């Protein structure tokens, strides 16, 4: 472990980090590509400075300006906004948003209702598994269902993950379109006053839901062991409240309270009780046809902050910026590698800039591979953009 996470050191360390380690070149190329056909300077950046001063409507037209701006302001937090019809500093409130990556924000605090290992800002490798599942489900849907190719996954710096979709179609999608995708992906609905937040009805399960449940099933036992979802009387009550059929609820309660506390064992016998009950009570099926699926989804399915996705100009933390509270780098990662990520292997500004730190070498390596993954995504985005422009040019010529 690293000795000090001293926030006061940041103002000295950040300029060094931005100059030496932040992948400025590839970052600007990523943004420029995401702006096309608008110039890079139409993109809004916003900085939060050391004393929580918040500056919006900044913009850069090239890497040189970016470097100068970083050195001048030394932002503690770096957010990326939308692409406007003009330089954002000029038009401000009258500006029209022309494009914006389709973004997703998943935060572990939204799992507080189900996770038992940590609460609020705390995270550990056990609850990180929720992020692994979320990432796999959303990535698969974006690729297979919506046909998007250029998808960037970023660790948010503390307790969540962000996803940026840069395909032209996604960038220019209007708000109803974003809303529809968010709603398509969102299965858990309801606030603190609703115990059962998933309702799948009685019709056939949509192919995408079936696929998602397949993904959850790969991890379900493991998560059940980690989280002990129904290991204590209170947690068991939470499960019981999700069962709408009273008779079944009573049977489950009677049986499970008598059992040893292992959640996995309890779950298995719950599944058995449910199956038997359904077989004997054909008419109960209307209410509880997909009960098992619904509960699995409530435990494990991604919990999106839909407002971030629906909004056209929501600001979102930049890849490779530093989280001011943890000092962690918002590294880019490969969705199929999310599973192997360990939270304490994520580089921090302190370990990266301190060669005496025991984690220094490993973190340097991890940082390098994160930049490499970022590069790969940007290269393929550039390729796709070039192809799109060539196609556009061809179609215009035809007319």
């Amino acid at each position, binding site marked *: 472990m690293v000795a000090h996470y001293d926030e006061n050191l940041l103002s000295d360390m950040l300029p060094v980090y931005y100059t030496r380690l932040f992948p400025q070149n590839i970052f600007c190329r990523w943004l420029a590509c995401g702006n096309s056909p608008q110039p890079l300077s139409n993109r809004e950046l916003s900085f939060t400075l050391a004393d*929580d001063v918040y500056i919006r409507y900044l913009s850069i037209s090239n890497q040189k300006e970016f470097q100068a701006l970083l050195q001048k302001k030394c932002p503690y937090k770096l957010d990326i906004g939308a692409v406007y019809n003009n330089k954002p500093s000029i038009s401000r*409130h009258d500006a029209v948003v022309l494009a914006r990556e389709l973004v997703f924000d998943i935060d572990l*605090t*939204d*799992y*507080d*209702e189900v996770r038992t290992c940590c609460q609020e800002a705390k995270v550990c490798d056990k609850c990180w598994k929720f992020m692994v599942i979320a990432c796999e489900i959303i990535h698969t849907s974006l690729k*297979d*269902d*919506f*046909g*998007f190719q250029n998808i960037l996954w970023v660790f948010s710096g503390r307790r969540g993950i962000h996803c940026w979709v840069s395909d032209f*179609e996604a960038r220019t*999608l209007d708000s*109803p*379109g974003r*809303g*529809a*995708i968010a*709603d*398509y992906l969102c299965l*858990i*609905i*309801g*606030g*603190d*006053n*609703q*115990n*059962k*937040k998933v309702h799948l009805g009685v*019709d*056939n*399960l*949509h*192919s*995408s*839901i*079936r696929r998602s449940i397949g993904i959850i099933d790969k991890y379900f036992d493991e998560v059940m062991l980690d989280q002990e979802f129904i290991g204590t009387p209170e947690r068991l009550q939470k499960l019981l*409240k999700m069962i709408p059929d009273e008779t079944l609820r009573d049977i489950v309660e009677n049986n499970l309270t008598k059992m040893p506390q292992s959640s996995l064992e309890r779950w298995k016998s719950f599944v058995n009780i449910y199956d038997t009950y359904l077989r004997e009570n054909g008419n109960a099926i209307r209410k509880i046809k997909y009960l098992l699926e619904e509960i699995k989804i409530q435990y494990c399915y991604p*919990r999106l*902050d*839909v*407002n971030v996705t629906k909004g056209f100009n929501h600001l979102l933390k930049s890849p490779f910026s530093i989280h001011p509270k943890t000092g962690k780098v918002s590294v880019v990662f490969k969705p199929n590698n999310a599973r192997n990520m360990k939270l304490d292997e994520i580089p921090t500004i302190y370990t990266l800039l301190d060669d005496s730190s025991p984690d220094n070498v490993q973190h340097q390596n991890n940082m390098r591979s994160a930049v490499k993954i970022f590069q790969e995504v940007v290269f393929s985005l550039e390729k796709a953009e070039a192809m799109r422009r060539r196609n556009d040019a061809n179609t215009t010529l035809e007319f």
Partner: protein
Amino acid sequence: MDLKIKRKSTRTAHSSNLLENYPHDLQMYKVPPIENIRLHEFETLALERLTLLRCLATATTLKGLRIYSNEWREFVLNELRSQGLKYYANLCDISGFGTSEADLQARRKDHIGHFILRLAYCRTEELRRWFVARELELFKLRFMTMKSEAVVEFFKINKLCYTNISEEEKNEIIGCLRESTMHQKVDSLKFYKVKFYEVLDLVKSRKVYIQGGYAYIPDKDFISVLSAQYRIHLKQSLVVACHHLGEIEQDERLVGLLKGLHQSYSGDDYSDTKVVVPIETLDSLSVKSFPLCMRQLHEQLRLSHHLKHGGRLQYGLFLKGIGVTLEDSLRFWRDEFTKIMDLDKFEKQYAYNIRYNYGKEGSKKNYSPFNCLKIINNNVGPGDCHGCPYRHCDPSNLKNRLKGYGIEHQALHDIVDMAKRGHFQIACSKYFDAAHNTELGLGINHPNQYFEESQKILKGENKVEIKKETKQTTIKKEQSKQMEDIDFDEISEWNE
């Protein structure tokens, strides 16, 4: 474009011309009418169209019928006939492409009526939304009842070309189609491939199979593609119409008429209040005069000294609406929040939003408090406790809460029952009666309206202890008056 309506035109309408202009019962209203019409006819057509649209709104909101269901359709058609609008009933019943004089005349009226209402409803964003929502319902209603040859004809007339996918392609994905398409006999249907953003309503509700960015829809679902296009077209046209309003308003005869049309919908939005409510009274007010949604937020705030963004917005604007000043509001939130955070954090992260609600920051708009529909339609996620308790609470939680507030058994049962059946606003009205020991049966459509009505009773402005017979009539009167004010805005969206 739309203004051509009143311009002199030398053309006279012959039926051959009509046939050319109006080949089909269902129109996309792309071209505005150009003939000369009398003022009297102008007025009649406008009012008839308005009756039609209101009839749709009534079916969904007041009658609580499931939109596009058979009962809903029956109700609309019967209502149209009883209002003497036979020609609209015929246009809506089985839309076709007949050529009789009656058909043609009906289509002409439909066409002109639509364009007149565009002028009346383009003025504000709210009116536009109401109009677009109703026109879309109408469009869908008519498309649904069309016979398949009429559909083919409609596509031909509007030059909509789509080719269905091959049998091979269909067989490859038939399992997924069966699973994800909400129709019977999927195997015998022809499927078409469109981009997913052409059928957002189907994507949103997961009623279509999508793969690689394409949605696979059977011909019945083309209504989604068309209504999406129609919605965009209509929205844009309303903006254009709005720009030209000035020219039309030079004719005083039209101004009075057009403005009069939508008057009954401009209910109070509570963005300006005259009374001042001191924050010291909030605790007692929340018990006596707050609707459940606000009381819940107030108690949550007192309990945990924090509310998430959605809650702060809903409750903050409500407080503004009842007459809490900006200074008081800042003090109120600060006192609570600083119990769990330092002052500095509050000032930096939360004070801005409070001033923003009062129109002092950002775009400096004076935001109005949320009405019931907005609250009911709000996104409520984990950790949130805003929204409408009748919609966003489990019945058992709702029951416990009401019991805790001392609502007696029968009333409690009624309230929960209404909430279960999806009549959230009626449940709220029942709660009002239970809390005030009255039987007013108010139509609640705004939390601030709830508050004001409650204050009226508490201050004795409403005579509650009226004799039985007179009470009956007051109830009726109240009801009909309140119903008029209900904002039908986008009701269809959350019914879907």
